[in-house]
């Protein structure tokens, strides 16, 4: 009787230790590896245009099915496609990709307070104290943080203009 108790008890302790060790050794980093993978695809500007506080929150929401795959405007159509493959849904189900926006400053009203410059997550605003600021269109993700920061209300957002470099034929209609 004592023998059996000791043996079972010992076995229990040994297996428990083994499980404990295994849990540490084979631990899965973070929560879901998919979240990390998606986060690495996202622009990372933490702009919040998706309605979530930053890219990693958006990635979690995407994995949990709480965000649409076209929620990220700066990511554009390319990100929609990548997300569709990763999450195993159809890219078309999301409807049109959001139109990418860019910001620009109305120079006549800018006082050179540098607030937009400090708010921009990609350093797309060029300026200095008391100087008119300007936004480098190529570096702007359209996150609107500068517009929120501007006390003069002189930053506006508009769809990225179509140029000869970005224009292309549309899909034929009918049939």
């Amino acid at each position, binding site marked *: 009787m004592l023998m059996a108790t000791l043996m079972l008890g010992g076995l229990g302790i040994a297996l428990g230790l083994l499980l404990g060790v295994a849990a540490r050794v084979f631990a899965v980093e973070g929560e879901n590896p998919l979240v990390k993978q998606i986060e690495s695809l996202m*622009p*990372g500007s933490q702009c919040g245009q998706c309605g979530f506080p930053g890219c990693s929150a958006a990635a979690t929401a995407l994995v949990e099915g709480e965000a649409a795959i076209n929620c990220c405007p700066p990511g554009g159509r390319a990100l929609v496609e990548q997300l569709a493959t990763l999450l195993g849904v159809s890219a078309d189900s999301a409807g049109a990709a959001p139109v990418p926006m860019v910001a620009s400053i109305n120079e006549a009203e800018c006082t050179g307070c540098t607030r937009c410059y400090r708010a921009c997550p990609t*350093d797309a605003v060029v300026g200095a104290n008391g100087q008119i600021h300007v936004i480098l269109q190529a570096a702007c993700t359209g996150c609107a943080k500068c517009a929120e920061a501007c006390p003069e209300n002189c930053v506006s957002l508009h769809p990225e203009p179509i140029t000869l470099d970005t224009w292309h*034929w549309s899909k*034929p209609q009918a049939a």
Partner: protein
Amino acid sequence: MLKWSGVKGGVHPDTHKDRSAALKIVQASLPDCVILPLRQHAGADAIPLVKPGDSVLKGQLIAAAGTEVSAPVHASTSGRVRKIGPVQAPHPSGLAADAIVIESDGDDRWIDLDMPDDPFSQAPMELAERVARAGIVGMGGAIFPAAVKLKQGARHEIKTVLVNGSECEPYLTTDDRLMRERAEQIVDGARLIQHILRAYRIVIAIEDNKSEAIAAMRAAAEPFGAIEVEVTPTLYPMGSAKQLIQEITGHEVPAEGRSTSVGVLVHNVGTVYAIQQALRFGRPLISRVVTVAGGCIKSPRNVETVIGAPVQHLIDACGGLTDEPAQLLLGGPMMGVTLPSTQVPVIKGATGVLALQRREVSRATESPCIRCARCVQACPMGLLPLEMARRAKVDDLDGADAAGLKDCILCGSCAYVCPSHIPLVQYFQYAMGEQDARKNAARKNDYTRMLMDARNARLEKEVAAKAAAKAAKKSRASSTSESAP
């Protein structure tokens, strides 16, 4: 000499060449102003070197090549720079492009040209550099900077310089007339290219419907060895580099390969002529021959004009329009692009200006694909147009690529034969444009990430620097307080 390994596919559209081919090239008068877009070539915009109000002379460099793959722009007549800024581009979108507009002073006064010595005694790379400085691009419509091609070619073993005089697009006869009227210059230009590339031989390929051009080129080539004039069958798209190389050499250019990989360098007749003018006389590319044709043109013919002249100016030189055109095209009817108006300028790559009547334009409406596979037979690249279009329609871009989209040369043979009038080429253009857009978006995404990282690194450094400064101040403060009595 016809080889059985010749071109597969292809179509035989009506050529409509007789009227303009019969008349000599005529010089257009000088327009009141010339509009010179900063990008008339494949590659980066040229960078303006003049400012509004400046006086310029004909042939003066007014915009320098932006990057390695780019081309400079020269004033095509003398006058005053009126503006530098956006003008309507000769592009189907009707969007604006940056250009230098010169008001002509009517004198058409040349700048002093740097007259080169005997080019055959000069080093090949020096000559290629001269071609680059002359701003020459592929004049058959490809608009790739000619010097870049020459320099690339010089790095490979080029056996054959292939002069492309096939001119397979309907209506166009500029190359035909050039070969008839300026055969000696073209042969001289081909020999200069041969010298630059140290090629073994020159082949001049001409379609069999241009018998006078063939005779003229044969006569001009006669005194020199190692120049052959090869007659190819009349077949669209014989003028495409891959097709022509296969027809002439029997070698197939591998998919995604360059023609230099099979030891051939192809230049269009017009480009060869421009290269000769640059190397013999130091003339930059500021004029070209354009076919003005189509049912709405009073007297269709070839016009030699300065680059930058408005399209309307050329139409006027041919007696004007007899009718409101149903379609206005830059280039041929198979691969040309629709023009937004007749006020847009003639650019370096403009082979033709076509004003087509309603009956010359196919207007049939699209009906569903009947899977007749005529498009497959017609495709010179051996692709599956119906499948490519089906996948492009549902935005399966990778699928369209797998069906051949990445090898499509947009020749339009498939759309030409399709009994259902499916706008196949427009599907392909859409799909290719969409692919580019996605690539650009992905590139911007990477760029954004890089900027973010750089900013975070900067902020961290700032925080660290602040902390260090604070610590230093503190230690200084404490050391001074210690030393104080």
